[in-house]
């Protein structure tokens, strides 16, 4: 029968059964945020890995070797994606010491992982798929770290076979991998909260302190294996990554492309960066004590009470004549420690008698530089 003549009436009712599809979530199936590297609020240019977040949203760059590498946005991608993240060695380390490492990772919020049913005998299998490209072929590892209760880790090896060629990899991780029962026991549970759930990592180099057995859960710090290549061994080495998908089930389904707005909103739960130019007013002010005080609208609910950083040239516009005075030390204030899921932040600045005097009323925060142009930012960080 030609495919074009097959309709729902031609499919026997028992041919596609609920058990066949029950574990394959058909919407929002990807547990990874920004898996196709669409959103770059912090920076797009090459930035040194610093054991923290640096460039692409939600992805962090761990590094403790005697060398160094950067991450940056790249348009060298697998088909159907606008960007990849490119890691590039800038200072080589040909001999990784026992406690040293380099890897790219994402922390997944615990309450998003409850469908995994970890900590029970019904714990689900996960499947990871991703596209990768590197000049350096050989064995690499991915890792999962389940943090709550007792921390359990699993490294899994994969191979980059062809230099400078995009390759799609698929890895299935069962809760009993390595004939273990750690994840299915009660200590395998992931708390239903806004804390750390699972870390997914892509190894670039692992010292011997972190070597374990591929595809085996353990309670030790087994992030990688002894077969992992030392990607840090040459400044010629690069590593591209995109279309990362982690989903429930034993099958890798096609990558779930989400709209830019959808993906950005997911990222902004963890980082909100408000860029603004000269004379833009980003939030309204109020007079409270001797500090400028402002209410900044947030586009989405943030995970936790955020840290705040700011760029240069942020001023308080304080009267109808357009007078301004500088504002430093912007901090999110007057919110309880457990005050999560907020959609506005009350921001206080350092003491400034001009901004707070009776005749000068803070109207809003703006950007200014006497040169006639200024680009600055306010950045709120609630990353895991």
């Amino acid at each position, binding site marked *: 029968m030609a495919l074009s003549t097959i309709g729902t009436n031609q499919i026997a009712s028992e041919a596609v059964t609920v058990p066949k599809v029950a574990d394959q979530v058909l919407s929002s199936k990807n547990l990874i945020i920004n898996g196709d590297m669409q959103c770059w609020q912090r920076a797009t240019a090459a930035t040194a890995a610093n054991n923290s977040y640096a460039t692409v949203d939600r992805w962090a760059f761990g590094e403790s070797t005697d060398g160094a590498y950067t991450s940056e946005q790249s348009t060298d991608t697998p088909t159907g994606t606008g960007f990849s993240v490119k890691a590039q060695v800038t200072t080589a380390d040909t001999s990784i010491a026992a406690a040293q490492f380099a890897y790219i990772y994402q922390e997944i919020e615990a309450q998003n992982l409850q469908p995994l049913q970890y900590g029970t005998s019904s714990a689900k299998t996960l499947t990871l798929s991703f596209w990768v490209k590197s000049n350096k072929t050989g064995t690499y590892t991915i890792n999962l770290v389940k943090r709550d209760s007792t921390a359990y880790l699993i490294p899994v090896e994969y191979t980059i076979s062809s230099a400078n060629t995009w390759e799609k990899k698929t890895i299935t991780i069962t809760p009993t991998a390595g004939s273990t029962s750690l994840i299915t026991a009660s200590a395998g549970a992931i708390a239903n909260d806004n804390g750390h759930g699972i870390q997914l990592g892509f190894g670039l180099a692992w010292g011997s302190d972190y070597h374990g057995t591929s595809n085996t859960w353990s309670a030790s710090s087994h992030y990688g294996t002894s077969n992992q290549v030392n990607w840090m061994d040459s400044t010629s080495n690069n590593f591209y990554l995109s279309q990362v998908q982690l989903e429930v089930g034993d099958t890798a389904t096609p990558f779930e492309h989400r709209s830019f707005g959808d993906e950005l909103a997911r990222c902004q739960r963890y980082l909100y960066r408000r860029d603004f130019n000269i004379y833009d007013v980003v939030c309204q002010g109020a007079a409270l*004590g001797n500090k400028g005080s402002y209410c900044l609208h947030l586009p989405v609910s943030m995970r936790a009470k955020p*840290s705040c950083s700011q760029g240069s040239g942020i001023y308080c516009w304080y009267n109808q004549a357009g007078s301004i005075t500088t504002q430093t030390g912007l*901090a999110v204030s007057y919110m309880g420690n457990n005050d999560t899921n907020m959609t506005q932040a009350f921001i206080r600045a350092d003491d400034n008698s001009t901004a707070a005097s009776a005749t000068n009323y803070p109207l809003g925060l703006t950007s200014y530089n006497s040169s006639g142009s200024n680009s600055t930012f306010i950045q709120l960080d609630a990353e895991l």
Partner: protein
Amino acid sequence: MSIKSAQYKSDTNLVSKKTENTHIELIYEGGEKWQVPLSENNRHYAEIQRQVSAGTLTIEDAD
């Protein structure tokens, strides 16, 4: 990223009228500066507490 310094910052509580520590000014080597809430769910605060417990960091009192 290595922490260069951490110092409490204070503010007047509008209800109690008492001055209290409200957040920590965190400065990394290289100059990156963050105002960090006193919240265990905040990753910067958690790292500060980890280093204080390890004895590698002291939080300075507020001015």
